[in-house]
């Protein structure tokens, strides 16, 4: 019981907005609604909701690297693409029997993380920072996009998996959970919904613990003043690299889930538009807070989809306008701004009541 309580306490801290019974009560209600939601909806709509959830992981990756760590990575889509293609190559070659799709998920995310170790080592140990970090990471993702786009010929294959150039790779199996009797195939409806929701809750809570730990303290210290952080004895390059690799793995999770959800992946998933969108979700929500990032991403994605349906060509323009407005009105993010406002309101209320 005390172990449980101490774990619970580690979920809260100065690095995350939202604490106390009020916040966790609301969290439980939202989670309960999310769990009950498929009972009141149809498979297609639920599958569409999964699509929103899939993107939250890459948003969280940007949240910790940029919002908490202060390093703007413009190339999280590179890790998204590597993991997505990785999952495709692995499952097209080895199939989905014996729960291999779950192994492929882990391996594909691992490959993305390994690539981040290499790239991050040269960037952080080479002391690349600020806008140059954004340029290097953007260049990497655009380079990968260009490379994959020219793999249309039959000579471009890994095992039996054709890369297919600009058309992308398709027909990989969905995630499949081995089960006595019949394996559970997670098609893009209720099954996948619960899987992704569960993963999202685990990742969100784990990141809250990480960011409120002493490790998280150093990460925000580096954002605030890297020189001071180093002069307190921290090897800031190591901390930056670890954060970057964790972020790459999160972006990789998005990539695998996206590929498994739609059973396809194309080079444009690493292109300019794809790279810019997560920045907007995270900036609009509130990049320096996990909860704001999750809420902001889901809201902006839902709005974006509605706009695409009713006025396709204006949706991207609207995204740009939204970013500009956020920077002008609430530079720390709209959701975060609202949450601070609610917090102040609650404080005033309890003061009056007491």
């Amino acid at each position, binding site marked *: 019981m005390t172990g449980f309580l101490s774990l619970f306490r580690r979920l809260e801290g100065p690095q995350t907005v939202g604490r106390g019974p009020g916040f966790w009560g609301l969290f439980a209600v939202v989670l309960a609604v999310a769990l009950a939601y498929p009972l009141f909806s149809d498979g297609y709509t639920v599958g569409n909701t999964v699509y929103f959830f899939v993107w939250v992981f890459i948003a969280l990756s940007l949240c910790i690297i940029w919002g908490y760590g202060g390093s703007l990575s413009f190339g999280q889509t590179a890790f998204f693409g590597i993991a997505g293609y990785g999952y495709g190559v692995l499952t097209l070659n080895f199939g989905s029997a014996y729960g291999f799709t779950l192994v492929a998920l882990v391996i594909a995310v691992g490959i993305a993380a390994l690539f981040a170790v290499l790239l991050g080592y040269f960037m952080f140990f080479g002391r690349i920072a600020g806008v140059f970090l954004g340029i290097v990471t953007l260049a990497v993702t655009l380079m990968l996009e260009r490379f994959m786009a020219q793999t249309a010929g039959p000579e471009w294959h890994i095992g039996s998996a054709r890369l297919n150039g600009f058309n992308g790779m398709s027909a990989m199996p969905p995630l499949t959970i081995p089960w006595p009797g019949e394996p559970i195939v997670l098609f893009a409806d209720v099954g996948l919904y619960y899987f992704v929701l569960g993963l999202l809750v685990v990742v969100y809570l784990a990141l809250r613990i990480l960011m409120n730990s*002493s490790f998280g303290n150093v990460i*925000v210290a580096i954002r*605030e003043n890297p020189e*001071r*952080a*180093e*002069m*307190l*004895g*921290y090897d800031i390059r190591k901390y930056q690299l670890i954060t970057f690799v964790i972020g790459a793995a999160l972006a990789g999770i998005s990539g695998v889930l996206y590929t498994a959800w739609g059973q396809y992946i194309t080079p444009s998933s690493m292109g300019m538009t794809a790279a810019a969108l997560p920045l907007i979700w995270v900036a609009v929500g509130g990049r320096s807070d996990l909860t704001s990032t999750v809420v902001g991403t889901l809201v902006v994605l839902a709005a974006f989809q509605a706009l695409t349906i009713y006025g396709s060509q204006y949706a991207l323009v609207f995204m740009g306008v939204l970013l500009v407005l956020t920077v002008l009105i609430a530079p720390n993010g709209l959701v975060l701004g609202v949450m601070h406002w609610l917090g102040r309101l609650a404080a005033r209320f309890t003061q009056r009541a007491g």
Partner: protein
Amino acid sequence: MSLLELRELNKHFGGLHVTNAVNLTLEPGEIHCLIGPNGAGKSTLFRLILGEHHPGSGDILFAGENITALKSFARIHRGLSVKFQVPGVFKGLSVRQNLEIALQSRHRGAELEAEIGRLLTFLGLESEQAQTAGNLSHGQKQWLEIGMAISLKPRLLLLDEPTAGMSPEETHMTGEMVQRLNADGMTVLAIEHDMAFVRQVAQRVTVLHLGQVFAQGSIDEIVADERVAAIYLGQAHA
């Protein structure tokens, strides 16, 4: 054995010779002040000692060990600590969190809480602990950063203009703070323009001019030195 020894330290920025064959020795337990006109190379010397710049030639010895090739964080682990010229606090974080980040690598749990409390009292910042550090007054920021620097229990504390922007009362309080730390055994090397402060704390003074050690001695000897007065008035090339 001396605590810090700089041997023939040279640093060029292009054609500019900012540190020119500097020899300086610090004995354990002393408070040593580094003075000199703007551009004398005082802050550059600090950056060389801290490993933010690397010398063109020469050696830096700390407690007998040659640390010239060590990275900054490794020098901090050896027992160096610094307060920068422009207060280097974590502006967006609370005062308490600033101290926690400084202390967390040495203390955990209840011990950490106790240490934070002790340091807040020492700095006189108890009532400001929940404040965002960026909202503190300039003097309070200076103290907070001194607090972060001393929380590492350094053997040598480097202070770059610790009293800049402070009122005479605050300057005097800072001087007392430094003397208390020194009484506990901390060696201090301070860059300072405020002569009242230098007079209050310094046991030995080094004058730096055009990247070279120009004069060295007690504060009275330095004040009596006409050549030193001359370089401050800008006439000098003695």
